[in-house]
């Protein structure tokens, strides 16, 4: 058992995967924390974000301000502390993007994001939680060995951070799928209610609804998410799982507002590509045995 556990984390992978995750996460952060892409693209968060998201200067409130932190003891969402956190995210994300001290920068970025979210109980979104969690996972990786301004010379990248990324993806699909094994979801009640309140649209949604109705769509989504767990976990079916996972997010992104969730999950799916490398043993390895 212990040997199998160890084998999950042992070995080396192509450092390119960590560079790709670093660049992907930093880009998503830069896109999501502000509305600067609005003239170029129509993204979900442009519907409610004006200027720099969570920056007090771009989200003014009349005095006395509602102080409703997720956890007691945190300062106001309109404080100087909040402003500093909000403005710190952009330069930190640029450091991560360029690969300049990316690990501490990614960690600081994740902490800033979580703190800003915790300053107001109404700021919690699953896609933001996933984004800041991804920053924390980037901080675990040797992500500056490729595609960075000054690449760190690294002969091999360890596999254990990749295993953690993969495990996190499995947890997310399992949590989403298991939560849908609820009668109110499976009979279509929850999906119908959500679709009446929030925009659910597009050719795929219309076709699915016409063919199987809300209950059929709800069952299909639950089955899809649950199927991804074994497909991604088993090495032989990983590529099929990654393709089906990507397809799920394309369908969801084209149907309703999930903001950066689909793009974040696409990065997680990238980790299931065959990044493992087999390395010829070095002299030191041979003498050690």
């Amino acid at each position: 058992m212990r040997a199998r556990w160890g084998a999950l984390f042992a070995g080396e992978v192509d450092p390119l995967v960590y560079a790709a995750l670093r660049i992907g996460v930093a880009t998503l952060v830069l896109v999501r924390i502000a509305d600067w892409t609005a003239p170029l693209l129509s993204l979900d968060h442009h519907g409610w974000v004006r200027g720099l998201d969570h920056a007090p200067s771009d989200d003014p409130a009349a005095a006395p301000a509602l102080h409703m932190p997720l956890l007691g003891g945190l300062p106001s969402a309109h404080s100087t502390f909040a402003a500093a956190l909000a403005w710190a995210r952009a330069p930190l994300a640029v450091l991560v993007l360029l690969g300049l001290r990316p690990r501490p920068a990614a960690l600081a970025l994740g902490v800033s994001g979580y703190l800003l979210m915790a300053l107001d109980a109404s700021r919690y979104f699953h896609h933001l939680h996933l984004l800041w969690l991804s920053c924390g996972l980037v901080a675990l990786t040797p992500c500056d060995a490729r595609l960075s301004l000054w690449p760190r010379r690294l002969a091999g990248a360890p596999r254990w951070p990749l295993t953690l990324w993969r495990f996190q993806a499995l947890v997310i699909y399992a949590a989403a799928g298991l939560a849908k094994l609820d009668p109110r979801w499976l009979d279509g009640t929850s999906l119908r209610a959500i679709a009446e309140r929030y925009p659910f649209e597009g050719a795929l949604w219309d076709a699915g609804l016409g063919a199987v109705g809300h209950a059929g769509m709800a069952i299909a989504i639950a089955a899809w998410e649950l199927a991804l767990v074994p497909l991604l976990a088993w090495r032989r079916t990983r590529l099929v799982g990654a393709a089906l996972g990507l397809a799920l997010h394309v369908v969801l992104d084209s149907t309703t507002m999930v903001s950066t969730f689909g793009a974040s999950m696409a990065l997680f799916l990238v980790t299931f590509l065959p990044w493992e490398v087999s390395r010829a043993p070095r002299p030191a390895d041979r003498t050690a045995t």
Partner: protein
Amino acid sequence: MRAGRRPSDAALLAAALAMLALPALAALGVTPVGGFRMFTEPVRYRLTIFEERADGAAYQVPVRAILPHATRDARRVLQGSDRLRLGETQARLVAERLDAIAALVCAQDSRRRVVHVHMEMEDVAGAPLPGRDLERRCE
């Protein structure tokens, strides 16, 4: 240069358990934060606020009166909640922080002596869920 040493098995196990912790707590109904229970927990909710004044008069405070004092995200959750409206995770989290709403309503008008805040919730099938009630004496 080679990559650093692998963390111990105990540290890796702790990391894996940490990834499971919030989804497990969400499944147990402890907190919706980090549960990744996508689209599965819609609730209908209604927020009612009453004030009592020193002379004994009681008035309903419209939710729109607190909106200018809220963050943009809070306004999205609170707006229109005088009547039953649909929400998800944020509505459940705000329901846990009615003390903050009561404190704001107290601070808005010095004539207020007591503020009552009630969050009524039901599931999408119309079954009532445990609501939240809070009474705050204004200083």
